């Protein structure tokens, strides 16, 4: 399956799971389970940052149109698309691993721990920016912090479950060929 088709299917599946399953779950007002942004985190390494941001913006905007609140998820998606390349540079284990592998995964990041930290930081940024924009006028800092941390924990749990369900075979590509 080509990378394009694979990513389009992924985008649709994550979007539908988010809108019709996760957003219907009312765990607690402190916790909003979100998984849809995993699509952006799983995009290929070699994609240019500008394209990454444009795709993230469109993707977030589609999700926003389901709830008639334009801007919120789009802004959060653009933020994580912007900072993803910095983190990839920090967490990639050895020189050129991002050229040898296609997309971020446990194997390409060199172990479970760096992968979890990578995902954790990005979901923290996503949730924090989303709740900050939403809570613009409430200004309750403790409420905001607890909500962000709890939601990030749930997001991480969902990411690990998604990682277990969708087994992604990562081929080792050498750039010598």
């Amino acid at each position: 399956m080509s990378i394009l088709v694979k990513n389009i299917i992924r985008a649709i599946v994550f979007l539908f799971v988010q809108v019709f399953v996760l957003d219907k779950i009312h765990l607690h007002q402190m916790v909003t389970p979100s998984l849809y942004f995993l699509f952006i985190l799983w995009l290929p390494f070699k994609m240019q940052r500008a394209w990454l941001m444009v795709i993230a913006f469109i993707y977030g905007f589609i999700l926003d149109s389901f709830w008639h609140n334009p801007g919120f998820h789009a802004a959060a998606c653009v933020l994580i698309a912007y900072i993803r390349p910095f983190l990839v540079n920090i967490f990639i284990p050895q020189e050129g691993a991002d050229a040898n592998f296609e997309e971020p995964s446990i194997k390409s990041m060199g172990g479970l721990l760096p992968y979890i930290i990578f995902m954790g930081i990005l979901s923290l940024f996503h949730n924090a920016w989303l709740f900050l924009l939403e809570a613009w006028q409430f200004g309750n800092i403790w409420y905001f912090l607890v909500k962000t941390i709890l939601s990030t924990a749930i997001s991480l749990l969902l990411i690990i479950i998604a990682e277990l369900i969708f087994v992604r075979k990562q081929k080792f590509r050498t750039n010598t060929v």
Partner: protein
Amino acid sequence: MQNIFLFIRRYANLLLFLFLQVLCIYFIVSYSKYHEAAFGNTANKFTGRINNRFNRVEYYFQLKKTNDSLVKANEVLYNKLRSNYNIADSVDKIVIDTMRIDSILQYRKFNYLNAKVVANSTAAQSNFIVITGSNVHTFKKGMGIVGVKNDVVGIITEVNGDYAVVMSLLHKDSKISGRLLKGGETGTLSWNGEKPNILTLNNIAQSTKVAKGDSVVTSGFSATFPRGILIGRITDTKKETTNNNYKITLRSAADFFSLEYVYAIQSADAEPVKNILEKAKASVN
């Protein structure tokens, strides 16, 4: 000149990032304009159709709850039937003025039109409900929406073809006036964005008598809702230190988690009231 181009090329990503963020924040700030924009309409139609498909499945899971609430609503209505009441004095006789029968439509102020909920959210800070049904084409922006048990749900913000978007009471910009059923004092009702189903009522002076469990109803000052529709019941009252008002917390009567059917309230007064208000505003300016 060359330096400018170099600068743009060097910081292209950062500039694009900032541009997209500003665009998003612009959308957030001016969301009401977005509703009227053509793109908003297409998005609305598209998401409405998908939501409708999924709602058909979800509907079956809610059938029991929906049925229960409809039975309760029927019970209330049956109890209001005139034949249930004894006349106070056997000498009294109910006389219906025949003069009014012909012109009965003139005396009707509000008309209830049913609609089906296809999408509903409670998790965000600004929650909207999407409704559909055969009556939707008669709906107008600003009409009030009540649940099956005749409790306030929200106000229509946009109508588009087969779908209408309702701003739920659980929206940070939602402001409607609420009246204490016992005392009659009115205040402004808003949502603080924390717990769904928990609303706050402001601008009630500390001199009024307020108790836990009191009902808060619509004031009837605007033509959106009839007077006396239940909004919620008071769960907590606090005295504010900065001014002489109470801060009243109430639990909404409508259950926003399981909305399936709602009624839109068509008001005969809506048009004349709006016209005269506009006239008054124009004359002041």
